[in-house]
Every structure is written in C-alpha cells, then in structure tokens.
C-alpha cells in the first residue's frame, strides 16, 4: 500500500445497504445474527481489513444458514443470500478503493457502477435459480437436485479458482 488507508464513503454506504438487505431478510425469519454480520462487515470496510469484512460476511451467511435450517420460505432466503454475496463483492471492492484512492479522489461513479453490475448479475441468477427451484421441488427427490447442483459446482471448480 502506498498511502494511508482512507475508507471510501460511497463504498461504506453501499456495503451497509446490501448487507442490510440480507440482514433484514433473515430478520423476517426471526434471526438477529445478520445485524451483527452487517456491523462487522461495515467495520471491516471502515478499517480496510478484508479479514474483518470476511468474518462479517460469514456471520451474515451463518444467519442465512440458520434461517434455512428453520425452514423459512425460499422467497425470504433468496434476498438474504443476494444481500450476503453482494456485501462481500461491494465491500471488498470498497476496500481496494480505500487502498488505492485518497478521500480527495472521486470514486463515486466507479463504485456505484460496480455495485449495480454485480447486483444485476446476482439478481438474474437468483431469479433463475428460484424459477428452477419452484419447478423442480414438484416431487423430485433431494438427491437428484443435490447431484445436479454439485455437478454444476464441479464444473465451476474445474474452471479454476
């Protein structure tokens, strides 16, 4: 790093917004853990620590898993996961911005653009996955769906990290 870390205001705000999207969704299922995750993620971006941000996102994800184990409806779980994934994507980007740009630099446009593109992609995937899910839960055993998803994942893993 070539200068002091200065947190980017836009990045901090965007991370909080998408994190809260996730946290509020799990809150609907009665899981409060998500709010702690958002707080940690925010402080990670503020301090420029990927580790703290990562812990926050994992905590947020934990709230999603807990909500999933409580068998909440999928329509709640999907926005929660969207928020979790975006919190990392936007938050990590905000940290690189904080490392590379002083507060005097104009980074607003770039950060909003990045967050928008990511949000669109993730939302499209979420909608697609939700559609497949509603169709496929019509009586197919879990094993079939599980293997299908794992097959797809193996492809992704095979593509290289």
């Amino acid at each position, binding site marked *: 790093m070539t200068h002091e870390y200065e947190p980017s205001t836009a990045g901090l705000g965007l991370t909080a917004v998408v994190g809260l999207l996730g946290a509020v969704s799990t809150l609907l299922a009665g899981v409060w853990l998500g709010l702690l995750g958002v707080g940690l993620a925010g402080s990670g971006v503020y301090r420029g620590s990927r580790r703290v941000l990562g812990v926050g996102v994992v905590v947020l994800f934990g709230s999603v898993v807990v909500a*999933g184990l409580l068998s909440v409806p999928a329509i709640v779980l999907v926005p929660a996961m969207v928020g979790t994934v975006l919190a990392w994507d936007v938050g990590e980007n905000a940290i690189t911005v904080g490392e590379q740009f002083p507060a005097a630099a104009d980074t607003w446009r770039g950060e909003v653009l990045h967050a928008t593109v990511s949000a669109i992609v993730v939302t499209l995937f979420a909608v697609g996955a939700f559609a497949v899910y509603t169709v496929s839960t019509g009586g197919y055993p879990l094993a079939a769906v599980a293997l*299908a998803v794992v097959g797809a994942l193996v492809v992704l893993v095979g593509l290289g990290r």
Partner: protein
Amino acid sequence: MSESLFDEASVGPDDESAPRAERDDSSGVRNEAAAASTTDSRVATRPVLALLTGAAFCLLGLVVGVGTLSGSSPILEMFVVPTIGIVAVIFGLGWLSDQFDGAGGGADLPAVERIETVIPGADIDETLAAERASRAPYSERTAVRKRLRQVVVAALGKAGHDPDRAESLLAEEEWTEDPRAASFFTISGETTARSARILRRVRARIRRLLGRDSPFGRDARYTIDAAADLVGVSDREWTDPDDPDALAEAVAGNRRTRDLQLGVVATKRVRLVGGLVLLAVGIGIALQQPSLLLAGAVGTGILAHRYAGGVPEPDLHVTRAVETDDPEPGEPVTVTVTVENEGESTLFDLRLIDGVPPTLTVVDGSPRRYTGLRPGARETISYDVAVESGQHAFDPLGVVARSASGAVERALTVEVDGDTTVTCETPPTPDVERPVSATVDRTVGSIVTDTGGAGIEFHSVREYRSGDPLRRIDWRRLANGGDLATRQFSVERSTTVVLVVDTRSEAFVAAGPDAPTAVDRSVHAAASIVRTLLYSNDRVGLATIGPHRCWVEPRGGARQWPLLREALATDEAFVYPTGDERFLRLSTLHWLETRVPDDAQLVFFTPLADDGGLQIARGLQARGYPISVVSPRPTGTESPGRLVAHLERNLRLSRLRQCGLWVADWEPDEPLGAAFDRTERRRGR
C-alpha cells in the same frame, strides 16, 4: 439409474479436462513468449469457459426436468448424498481459509502525489523491519552486515588503527565493549560448528514465535549504536538499541506511473463467495434442506460473472492541459486531464492515476479517479500541484482496468497528448548573507590569491622597500625594535570558477519524505554562489556530473547570469533520471577535463550519500584542480538505518578532509553561509 447418475456427476471431470488442456497450451506458449502475454491468452479463454459452464447448467437442468433421477435408492440417500455434502463443506471451508490468508488486493497504485525521494539508509530500516516481522532474506542480512563492517573498519582506521589491526580487532571481538555488537561480525560459517548454527537458528525461530526480538536485529541495532560511538556521533535522535520497534517508517513504494506493474492479473476476490456456495450446498445436502441449495445457487451468480466479460482492453485517448505557461515558484497550478474511451466496448471499472512529475507535490484535488466509461464517453480529472523552479516532466497516465466482476485486471500506461512538462524559470533566491569577497575567497580562493600585495587578508611580511605605502608598514615590529618591514596582503584576483553539480541518480536523495533532494539544494546553493561570484567580477561556469551532461562556458559579466539561470532552471540534467541513461564516471571526468580551463577552480556539490561522490571529488582533485566541496546533508539520526548512512557519510567527509579538501557539510534548514562559517572555524582549529 445410478449409473446414469454417476455419468452426470462425471460431466464435471470431463469438462475439467478442457481447461486443463487450455492451460497446457498456454504453458507451451510461455516458453516462447513473455510471461505477460501468457497470462493474457489464458485469461482470454474465460468467455469460452463461461459458455461451457452455461452448457453444463442446461444439461443438468434437462436431467432434472426430464426426471431420469426420479425414485431413489436407500444407499444413495443414506451414504452417498451426505458424503457429497460433507465433501462440499470441507472444500468450502478450504476456500474460505484461502481467502482469509491472502490479501487479494489489486495493483498498487504509485504514490504520485508526493515528491519522489530516496532517504539514505531507508533500505537498512526496511531490512530490520522485515527481520522484525518474519525473517529478512539471507542476502539482505548479509548486505547489512557487510555495510556495518565497512563502517566499523573505516571508523577504526580513522581512529588511527591500520587496516590489519582493525581486522584483528573485529576478529577478536575487541573493537567495542558491548558483547552483542562485538560478536556481530564473527558469527559466520567458518568460525561456528554446524550443530551450533542449527541450534541458533531453531532458537531464533522459537523466539520469533513467542513474539520476541530476533537476535540478528538486536545485534545489528547494538552494532549500529557502538559504531556511532566509535565514529563520534554522540548527538543522535535514535538512542535506544534495545527497542525493536523504534524503526522509522520506511518510505517504500514506488512513486511513478512508470513503475506500475504492467500486465494482466487475476484477483482472488471471488474465492470467499465460492466457499460460501460450497458450504450452503454441502449443508443443504447433508441436512436435506433444499432451500439452502437454492441459496448456494444464488451465489454462483458471482462465480459465473467472473468468467464473463473477459479481459478489458482499454483504448483510451488522453490529453493533459496545464493551466499556466509561466508559473511563479510555490504557486498552485491546475492540471486537467481528459480521458476518452475510444474503444468499442464499455469499460466498467477504470482506475486512473495521472503521472504527476516526481518533483512536484499535489496540493489540492487528486490525480486519481475511479470510474467507468461507455464508448465515446469522457472523464475529466483536475488537480493542483505546487510548482517549484526547474523543469518538471509528467509521466504517462496509469490505468488499471478491471473486468465488470473485478476478477481480472489489466494495468497499463497511456501516453498523453498535450502538455508533458511544466517549467518554472524564476531564479532561486540567494541565501548567502555575507560580504561578497569574503565568501568568494573562503569558498574557492585559498590558492589563487597566494600572491602578496594589496588586499584584505594578511599574507606575509617582507623587508621595506622605498615607495611602499605608509599604512602597510608593520609599525608593531618597529616598535618592538625590529627593522622597518612592510605587511603584505593577499592579492584579490578575479578567478575562474566552475560549479560542478553531482546529478547522478544516487544524488537524488533527501533527508525526509517531503524534503527537497540534495540536487535541488545543490542548485539553490550554486545559484546563490553564482550571483556573488559574478558580482565580484569572477568568471563562472557550470557543469554537471551525471547521466546528462550540462556545460556552460565560464565567463564574467552581466550576460552570464541569465545563461546560468536558465541552465540551472531548465536543463534536463537536473531532472531525476528515468533510469534509461547510464553514467560512466571516467569518461565524464575526462569530458569535464577537456572543457574546464587549466586555471579554473572547482566547487563540487554532492550529497556524498555513496562512494561515487567521494571518488569523483578525488578524481577531480587528482586532475590538479583546486577544489572545494559543498555537501548538502541528506542523512539523519532518527532511525538505525539512517544513522548508518549518516556514519558512512561522516566517514567520507573526514576522508575528503584528510585529503586536504575544503568540505562544507551543509545541514538542512541551515543558511549556506552558516555552513561555510562552520567549515572555516573547523579549519581554523
């Protein structure tokens, strides 16, 4: 049915072989082409891979939709499925821990806002800091030990020991009373048994695990402390060798867009999401929660997005405009950079940084911008720099372009149309507040004015001859009963002086991160001396010793000052060399010898931060020129590393003084005249 299942599962490995083949191809390319282009070609195959991913998804969706998997076997339910889930969880945790290990950041943008400075001794501080953090590389530790050894040997030499005696003092660990410092140079392969060395290494590792100080770092600090005592530098700011954290903040990092690490890099930022996806799927499978599988599928969006878009190929047109043509020194000048996307594709993620001249400081705004550009769109960056006298060259614009997902980034520099330099021609203000002739004589005149006659400074006494002026008769001698004698004074003769400035890259050093470089200070000093010399009708010339050669013929008179001023303000020799030019000492000295008139005196400006300055001064002296050295001090005593550089420079100064040279050690924040006074007093003693 279960066969078909495993067939489906094996889609993965089959497909996996495709990218493997791609990699093999590209590693074949690696042998022929540069590494950068290999990364290029590998990353460029990403869109193809994304297509494969999509195909795999479709196939699996089809399988699920057609329902070949309907019905179930108990073995599958009981063992295989949970096992797959657990394996997925394990992989997921692995990916998560990967993310927590690495920094995962993108390119380091250079710190162009600040003046580029090299601080003597900062490298030693860096080595000691690295040693404190983990373990510095062997080569660096050896280099530190070697430098300290040279300092100690030279200091012992200065203290009157001959080289053999100094070596034996080092070998017998008797050069200082401090045991840690004394043994610093004797720990080496020859003198210690192998087992003892291994034992020491193990002990050092355990100490470090416990968060304790490393033996090397501690001994090095004590050695520096002892060496400072030996050289006689008692007034130092860094005094506690026992404290391992008292290292000055190393001013590392590059400061020019030219230093940007060019090429294509894949960032690691999606690993955490990959880990989360595997965890969600694994837990969902193991605990039979389909909604968690759905959550995992949501996360694959980020993973797949990574492969879409490919590597950005920015095609940018950049123009730069500097507000004023002829700024006053210290005045803020607005620089405006316009960047236009001339390519066909949208650039989603552009991190721009203008190549601010390494000699200028940004005072308002920022030369950086984070943005995205549609084809044809343009972005304007403007910022203010404080201009100092001299010519300042801008570097190209630095660009880091990331793909929309941020997974791949390309760093490049773009040449800029429009203004590439800013020049400030105002003369540096003289800061020598002394009678003109005295300064001249004391600086350079000790040899040429060695003729008795009329003048100011006392020269000698000779027998009275009729016709001598009454006021020069030595009345005191007559009163004491002596003969009639005439006092003679040094004749002041107009002299030829050539100011020689050390502009090698090694001379661009400064006492602190924002301090002026030694070359800047030399130029200021040269300018003030020029004015006083010209005022007293001397002939003055200018030369530089560095990769760029600058020469102004020595002349007197009113027309010489504008010439010299222009050379000092605008000659490219005084600009930090970009590194392409080579400096050859002997041929440069020879070049200088062919130009400097035989009766000229030289004033040599050098920071003496390396042995090169010393060798040049000695080389000029050996060619028979009367030479004085003015040395702007770039070293301090704030940290162990800087103290080492300070000791080395002190030893060089005393070496030059031993050789009979007049050497002024000019401290920062000190008027030049005060440094000259100090030097005179030292000589008088």
